[in-house]
């Protein structure tokens, strides 16, 4: 059996599945239910200074796809709206009752050293395992000079991180906003400030949809709407890229992966792209805490099957193969292949290729079963058909024997090519 326990930047947990700082971790009641369900840790919903913020009624907007609910979720909720002391007492109680679980406390206070120093001392007294600095919240708080307003300015990230390391013995995780052009800049700033780890992504700024009857962006509050933070399965690819970039550029900096994780497979992918643990929110909000059961079993079984003994064996496993486009072998080719036995004759591959790709799929001649076939000379190996085909395994991509290794850096079409050694 694989060992799922982790030591993430000095924070121990029985498994890598944490609940992200969000509504599911706002109260002892929820957090205890999560721990009872098996979650390895939580990042307590962001604490701020009193008086607490006020949250709006109508806080979420959802987007479905082809009948499936919540492909994406956006929210306009702010940090905890409960008094600081209530949260601190509950954190103390929960950590005492669940000593083996990770309890990390998310923080967001004004950009003043004294504010940070004060709250860090209070959190330390709870016995919490660490803090996460919320530099990501993209709405409501950023307008007050907090959250993403800090996260988008690397100098501020470094400065606040440094304060936190100076005024606390606790591990400090810096949570990054994706609402920025180059994720490496704030990540490097966090590292320079002494961060023990980074976590990402926070939510993506979004308008989830428009109410076409009322002509207002969703969700509406008393008839009007505002932008929110987007999360859920739809943001996973964005998050995987950012996590991978940091893991590739800053090996050794622990990364807590966040963004659309709902299954053990999602988690394994985040681990492979450099995460040491993962944080989940939308999937739990969609289905309840019980989803962690399959996440734990599924990841464990998969690790056993692949021969990975520890989470650390998986972390960043795919990073050596996460290259820049200019390092791809342009002489390599793959060609689509349709299994006529499995083909159900829907024609989707044909029309997609015909209308929008390379005219490389035609109806097989003969009037028996209606099936499609690849015109190999026309196929460029784009994979489009294999993604469209509704039958699993019907269209596969067959790698061809590569004649040579030729990247763009060496390619004759590249005016800036590097001269080959032989020349």
């Amino acid at each position: 059996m694989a060992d799922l326990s982790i030591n993430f930047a000095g924070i121990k947990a029985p498994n890598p599945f944490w609940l992200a700082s969000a509504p599911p971790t706002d109260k002892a009641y929820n957090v205890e239910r999560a721990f009872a369900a098996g979650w390895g840790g939580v990042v307590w919903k962001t604490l701020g200074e009193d008086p607490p913020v006020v949250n709006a009624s109508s806080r979420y907007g959802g987007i479905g796809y082809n009948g499936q609910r919540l492909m994406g979720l956006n929210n306009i909720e702010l940090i905890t709206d409960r008094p600081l002391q209530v949260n601190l007492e509950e954190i103390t109680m929960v950590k005492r009752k669940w000593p083996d679980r990770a309890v990390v406390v998310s923080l967001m206070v004004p950009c003043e050293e004294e504010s940070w120093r004060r709250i860090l001392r209070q959190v330390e007294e709870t016995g919490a395992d660490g803090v996460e600095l919320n530099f990501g919240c993209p709405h409501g708080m950023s307008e007050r000079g907090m959250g993403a307003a800090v996260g988008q300015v690397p100098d501020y990230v470094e400065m606040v991180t440094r304060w936190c390391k100076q005024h606390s013995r606790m591990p400090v995780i810096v949570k990054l906003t994706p609402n920025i052009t180059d994720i490496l800049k704030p990540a490097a700033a966090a590292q320079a400030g002494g961060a023990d780890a980074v976590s990402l992504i926070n939510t993506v700024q979004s308008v989830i949809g428009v109410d076409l009857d009322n002509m207002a962006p969703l969700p509406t509050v008393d008839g009007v709407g505002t932008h929110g933070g987007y999360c859920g399965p739809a943001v996973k690819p964005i998050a995987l890229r950012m996590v991978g970039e940091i893991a590739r550029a800053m090996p050794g900096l622990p990364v807590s992966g966040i963004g659309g994780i709902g299954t053990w497979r999602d988690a394994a992918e985040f681990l492979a792209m450099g995460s040491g643990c993962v944080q989940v929110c939308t999937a739990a909000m969609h289905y309840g805490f019980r989803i962690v059961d399959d996440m734990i079993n599924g990841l464990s079984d998969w690790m056993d099957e692949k021969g990975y003994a520890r989470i650390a064996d998986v972390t960043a496993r795919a990073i050596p193969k996460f290259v820049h486009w200019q390092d791809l072998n342009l002489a390599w080719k793959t060609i689509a292949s349709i299994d006529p036995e499995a083909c159900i004759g829907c024609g989707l591959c044909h029309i997609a290729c015909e209308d929008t790709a390379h005219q490389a799929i035609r109806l097989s001649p003969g009037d028996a079963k209606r099936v499609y076939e690849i015109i190999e000379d026309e196929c460029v190996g784009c994979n489009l058909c294999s993604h469209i085909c509704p039958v699993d395994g019907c269209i596969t991509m067959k790698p061809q024997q590569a004649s040579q290794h030729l990247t763009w850096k060496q390619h004759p079409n590249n005016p800036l090519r590097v001269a080959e050694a032989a020349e």
Partner: protein
Amino acid sequence: MSDLLDDVFSGSSPDIKAGRLPGEALAACFADAHPPLTRDQADIEANRCYFCYDAPCVTACPTAIDIPGFIRAIATGNLPGAGRRIFEANIMGGACARVCPTEILCEGACVRNAQQHKPVEIGALQRVATDAVITRAEATGVHPFQRAAATGRRVAVVGAGPAGLACAHELARSGHAVDLFEARPKPGGLNEYGIAAYKMADGFAAREVNFILGIGGIRVFTNQALGRELDLGALRRDFDAVFLAIGQAGVKSLAVPGEALPGVMDAVRFIETLRQAEDKASVPVGRHVVVIGGGNTAIDAAVQAKRLGAELVTLVYRRGREDMPATTVEQDWALMNGVAFRHWAAPVAIEGGEGVRAVRFARTTLAGGRLALLEDGFVLAADMVLKAVGQSLDVAESEALPAIAQGRIVVNPDTLETSLPGVFAGGDCISGQDLTVQAVADGKRAAQRIDEYLKGRNHG
């Protein structure tokens, strides 16, 4: 059974009566057998459609409805668009959604069968879209299609069943003036008179006729039968073209002794009586009912007899289950409703006194590819016998009629024109699949050919 046969031969009176079931039970039995999908069900089902290119379901539909197109419109919440797309191809898309044997047409061709053994429920989705458009047209009085400018041409359509209605609608749409003649008191044809009540619940046949006529330009004359009130020669003289859609109004007989006994009736008459009865409790049915035949009429009669409260309904067919014209879905429906099937038997005599009491059958077999009666047989007790062994063309002998062969009006398969110039025919009175959807396809195609014919004459 032996007691019963003793009764039969001792001459006790047949047990035929109305109101075998309490009113509420009857109402449930004759309500919509397959209620419409809810909005949620429709969304889930619509999203199962792959939106195939050059879709096999469209090819399988005699009216070539753009099925992936209308299902996608349902999925996007565009019900009016979905309905219009269906009616564009098939103005009786509402009836077809209810009565089409989809398992041998669109749903039989669905690619989901190959993948999942469960096609998209195209018929049920079609009903959602067509119901929405018809209900809206009823509420607003606005028909989804508009007529072209009047051509000044007049066309007579004889028969207001699916073929006639579809033809009349298409002609009216093209700007021609149509007089639609119907032999019976109401238009609608088999949809009004000949299909099980639970398939056409809530007066749908009449609602659909009103919807179709809503385009305007169609005058309806009922109780006008060819060879009775109407004369084809006069129609040809008074109109620019004629479309014959007179169906198969005659009924074939069993040609066995006892066929004239009280309690022996044509299944189509039984169904018609049921359909026209406001109160199903007024329709008499036997305690023991024997239905002879293996088509959809036999099934509709047998199941409705059972649902009226008959104790035992036995459907007897002279060949095997796989030979029955009724689809397997229809057969399963009858079995689920408690109808008993007997295969490989043919009636040789109907017995009784003041009414029918039993039917004597001979077992059958295939001998040299032909059906042969065996010596061996059996007797089924029966208070009522429903004959459903086929229908036939029913027109008075007249030299003005077009050529007829094998009981069907002969037409040019491309133009649907008969042997008489300017006279076209379609639906069950010509040869082809005896399906509503085929009749609609014929009617629409005939209208297009008539339109071309009239334009040709304009120039000629």
